[in-house]
C-alpha cells in the first residue's frame, strides 16, 4: 500500500497544482470548513498576542488598550538593560540553562548507551518504564517534594549534613545551593523521558556493521564510539539545535514554585522576572519588552545553531 501511495503522489500533486482557485474552492470547501475552527483559534490565541508585542514599545495601560497607550520607543528595553539585576538575571538564565542542557543531554545519551548493552529485554523494558515515571508528576508536587526534602530536617539535608558536614539549614534559603537543587531535580524528572528519542534512534544502528566490527576484533567501546554513536548523531544534533534555541526559556514552572526572595541572586531568571514584573507588579509594557528580548535571542540562537550544525555536522532541522 505504501508503494502505491508514493507512486501516486507526484501525479496527484501535479494535477491539483494545475487546478484553478475556483475548482479548488469548489472541490475543497469542506476541507477548509473543517480547518476553520483551528484557523480562528490560531488567529486569536497565537497571532493576536504576537501583534500584542507592540506593547513592548508602549507604556501600556489595559484601560487604553494597544491603540490608545502612549508610545515610548525603546524605553522599556533600556530600563531592563540598565537595571541593577540585569547581569545577574542573564547570568542565572545562562548558567541554569547550559548546566541543564549539557548534563541533561550527556546523561540521557549515556543512559541510552548503557541500556542498549542490556540484552535481557524484559529487564530493559522495566528499567525504561520506571525511568519515565518522574516525568508524569506535576510541577507542584515536585516543588512540594523539593521543599520537604531540603527543609532543615528534610532527608536530603540530613544526608548532606551527615556525609559532607554542611551547615543544617533550609537549603532553599541559601543561594549557593539553588543551581544544584534545580539541576538534580530536573535530571531526576527528565532523564528517562529525554532518552526516549535516543532510544528510538538506536533503531538506525546497522546490526551487520556491529557484527562485522566484532569479528574484526573491535571491542565494545570502539564499536559504541565508531558505529552506535555516529548512527544517532543526527538525532543528537537535532536535539542540540532545539535545546540551544530554547536556551533562554528556562522553564519557569518549577522555579516560580520553589524560589523565594532570599535566593533571587541565583534563582531569578528571565521568565520568572517577566512573570513577577508583569503579573504581580502589572508593568505590562516592561515585561512584554523583556519577553520579546527573550524570544528574539531565542530565535537568533535557533537559526545560528541550525546553521552551524548544517555546516559542521550536515544536519539541520530546517
Amino acid at each position, binding site marked *: 500500500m*505504501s508503494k502505491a501511495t508514493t507512486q*501516486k503522489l507526484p501525479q*496527484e*500533486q501535479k494535477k*491539483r497544482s494545475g487546478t484553478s482557485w475556483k475548482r*479548488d474552492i469548489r472541490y475543497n470547501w*469542506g*476541507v*477548509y470548513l*473543517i*480547518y476553520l*475552527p*483551528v*484557523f480562528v*483559534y*490560531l488567529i486569536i490565541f*497565537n497571532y493576536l*498576542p*504576537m501583534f*500584542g*508585542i507592540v506593547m513592548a514599545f508602549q507604556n501600556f495601560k*489595559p484601560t487604553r488598550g494597544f491603540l490608545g497607550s502612549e508610545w515610548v520607543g525603546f524605553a522599556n528595553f533600556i530600563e531592563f538593560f540598565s537595571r541593577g539585576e540585569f547581569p545577574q538575571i542573564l547570568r542565572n538564565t545562562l548558567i541554569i540553562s547550559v548546566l541543564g542542557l549539557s548534563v541533561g543531554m550527556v546523561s540521557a545519551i549515556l*543512559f541510552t548507551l*548503557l*541500556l542498549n548493552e542490556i*540484552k535481557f529485554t524484559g529487564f530493559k523494558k*522495566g*528499567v525504561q*518504564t*520506571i*525511568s*519515565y*515515571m*518522574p516525568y*508524569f*508528576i*506535576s510541577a*507542584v508536587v515536585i*516543588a*512540594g*517534594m523539593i*521543599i520537604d526534602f531540603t527543609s532543615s530536617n528534610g*532527608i536530603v539535608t540530613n544526608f548532606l549534613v551527615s556525609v559532607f558536614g554542611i551547615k543544617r539549614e533550609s537549603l532553599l534559603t541559601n543561594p549557593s545551593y539553588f543551581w544544584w537543587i534545580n539541576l538534580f531535580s530536573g535530571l*531526576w524528572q527528565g*532523564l*528517562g*523521558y529525554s532518552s*526516549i*528519542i535516543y532510544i*528510538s534512534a538506536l533503531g538506525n544502528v546497522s546490526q551487520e556493521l556491529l*557484527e562485522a566490527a566484532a569479528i574484526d576484533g573491535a571491542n*565494545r567501546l570502539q564499536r559504541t564510539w565508531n558505529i552506535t554513536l555516529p548512527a544517532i548523531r543526527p538525532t543528537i544534533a537535532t536535539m542540540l539545535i532545539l535545546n540551544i534555541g530554547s536556551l533562554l526559556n528556562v522553564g519557569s514552572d518549577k522555579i516560580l514554585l520553589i524560589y523565594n526572595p532570599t535566593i533571587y541572586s541565583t534563582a531569578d531568571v528571565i*521568565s520568572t522576572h*517577566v512573570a513577577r514584573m508583569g503579573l504581580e507588579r502589572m508593568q*505590562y509594557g516592561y*515585561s*512584554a519588552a523583556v*519577553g520579546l528580548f*527573550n*524570544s528574539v535571542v531565542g530565535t537568533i540562537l535557533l537559526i545560528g545553531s541550525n546553521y552551524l550544525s548544517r555546516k559542521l555536522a550536515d544536519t539541520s532541522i530546517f
Partner: protein
Amino acid sequence: MIEKLTPSRVVFNIINYSLMILLCIVCVAPVWHILMASFSDPRTMMATPGLLSWIVGKPTTEGYRIVLSNPSIITGYRNTLIYVTSATLLGAILTTMGGFALSRNTKLKKPLTIMLIFTMMFSGGLIPSYIVNMNLGLLGNPLALIIPGCINGFYIIIMKNSFEQISPSFEESARLDGAGPLTILLWIHLPLVKATVAVIVMFLVVQNWNSWFPASIYLTRRRDLWPLQLFMREILVQNDTKMISAAEAASSVSLVNNLVKHCVTIVGTLPILCVYPFAQKYFVKGVTLGGVKE
C-alpha cells in the same frame, strides 16, 4: 548478535545491571518515601532521619481521613476532572480536524502549514497573551483553563503526518461515491489513525491534570474554580494548611501538617501514576512521531 562471555564482559554486565537497578531505585524512592510517610505515625516519622523503606510507627490512615473529607480537596478534584475532560475533548477534536485538513491536497496546504509552524517557533509571550485573554473576558472564567492552550502546533503536525500515511485511493473512491470531507474524516480516516488520536489524548490528559500556572493567573481569586493543583500548591508550597488543620485544632498542628502534606501529595499524584504505565507507550510513540521530519 551472540556474545562470548569473557571475564571483562561479565564484570561490565554486573556493573551495568547494578547501575540500572540503582537508577530505578533513585526514580522510585522519593515517591515511595512519601507513600510510606503518608501511612506512618507522624511522631515516629519526625525522629527518622533517612528515606523510609516501610511504614514507621503505628500505621495510620488519619491523614487520608482529614484530606479526603476536606471540602477544598473535593472541590479541587471535581474542578480538575471537569477541566481535564473538557480541555482534552476539545483539544483532541480540534487537533484531529486541523491535522486532517492540513493533510489534504488543497491549494492552501502549504501557507496554512507554514502559518501553523510559525506559531511553534515564535510566540507573543506571556504578557501579551495574558492581555489578549483578559480582553476576551477570560479573567476569573473557567474557560481560561479549557480554550487557550488546547491546541498545540506540534500535535497537529503529528496528526497531519499520520493522516498522510493513508493511501489517497480511499478518499478518491469515497468522493466518487459522493461522500463529503467530514464523512471521509469520520468514517474512513479516523478509524485508521485511532492510535495517533490516543497519543494526543494521553498528552492532553497528563498536561491538563498537571497544569497549575494558567489557573494561578486567571483564576487567582476564584477559589471555587481552582483545580486540585492550586490547592496542592497552597498546602505543599505555600505551606498554608490552615484550611485543613482548622478542623483539627485539637491535635498537634505541625505534626498533622506534615502527615497531611504527604497524604495530599499521594492523593494528587495517584491517578496519574495509575494511568502512566498504560500511557507511557503512547508517550514513547508520540515523541518518536514528533521526531519525523517533513
